[in-house]
């Protein structure tokens, strides 16, 4: 097996909480390599307490082993810290299609410190007339918003 085939298999592994998004598009795979049928993967967590990380690790091991890899070593690293800026453009598009507003660019801007709500477009009707209901949503990575035009509540993948 070569790097290209490993990449294709990793593309199959999805974030269990956002099942359209592959872990490559999520940006949690820092690097991977294969040598003598043993795969080394370096992962980084999204949020410290994210329960999806264990599922992702298990899924990686199982898909690679099912495809003939003998051993998978996963190393979890904290630095540099994961940021939503690492979500690919394709990933952001998939989030919108799934009904989740993608994170705005640059996670370290002022509004994440002052807590001022930004203008987030509704993933359904595209209106920017939306409001934040809560900084914390259904999972650690999301905030809860509401569209004031189509009146639908929606998740916003908040900046980190």
């Amino acid at each position: 097996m070569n790097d290209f085939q490993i990449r294709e298999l990793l593309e199959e592994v999805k974030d269990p909480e956002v099942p359209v998004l592959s872990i490559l598009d999520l940006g949690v795979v820092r690097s991977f390599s294969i040598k003598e049928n043993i795969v080394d993967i370096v992962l980084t967590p999204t949020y410290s307490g994210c329960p999806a990380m264990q599922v992702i690790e298990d899924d990686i091991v199982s898909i690679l082993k099912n495809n003939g890899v003998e051993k998978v070593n996963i190393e979890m690293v904290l630095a540099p810290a994961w940021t939503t800026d690492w979500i690919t453009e394709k990933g952001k598009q998939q989030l919108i299609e799934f009904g989740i507003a993608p994170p705005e660019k640059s996670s370290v801007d002022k509004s994440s410190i002052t807590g001022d709500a930004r203008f987030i477009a509704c993933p359904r009707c595209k209106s920017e007339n939306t409001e934040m209901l809560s900084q914390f949503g259904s999972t650690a990575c999301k905030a809860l918003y509401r569209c004031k035009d189509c009146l639908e509540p929606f998740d916003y993948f908040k900046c980190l």
Partner: protein
Amino acid sequence: MTEQDALFDYCLRIGDSSLIIGHRLSEWCGHGPILEEDIAIINVSLDLVGQARSVLDYAGKIEGKGRSEDDLAYLRDVAFYRNHLICEQPNGDYGRTIVRQFLFDSFHYLFLNELVNSKDDFFSGYAEKSLKEVIYHMQHSTKWMLRMGDGTEESHRRVQEPLNDLWRFTGEFFAVNEVDKILISNGIAVDLNKIKPKWKQYVREIIEDATLTLPTNDWEQLGGKEGRHTEHLGFILAEMQFLPRAYPDATW
């Protein structure tokens, strides 16, 4: 005390504080005053317990006796815990929980903000990661301090009383012991004296904006960093550690 002992103790102080206050917050699960707050406070809890896991994992490696993060969380008794006393104080009503969280979050944020400069690679990476999450925690508890303090007479009273009550535990944030002295000298630990004035300024500003009164009581209740705890920690551990102690080989 060797440098290794000091480093192990320092890990416990950081990890235990996040674990115990995170566990306290988890007691709100399903009991939050409104749905959004139930979700918010459990998100904060999840972040803190997640942060605790990685520090306790590192603590086990520093100690070098083969103890895992679970061994450290579930198989140590009260006297071996090093968390700040404020973390173990009971939730009370939501006002009390928010005051406790506000006092802790504002310290936690400033602490991590310095820990990113640690010469220990684990701590600097850990701090950079955790800081991103803690910014959201601090925003959340700060906003509730403002809303409740500057809300109704009733909400004002329900944050002023716990503020007066919990104030005596805040001195411990900045209390320096042997562990700090050893680790500050080699650039690993945060110089707590450096963040004290910043914390006081931030807390004073928010308390004033919230129309609350800054407590004047200067008594500092210390002990957590040396394993001398209030009566509450034993009850927390009795619940938190029950399962792994009763069924040592239990797995999911």
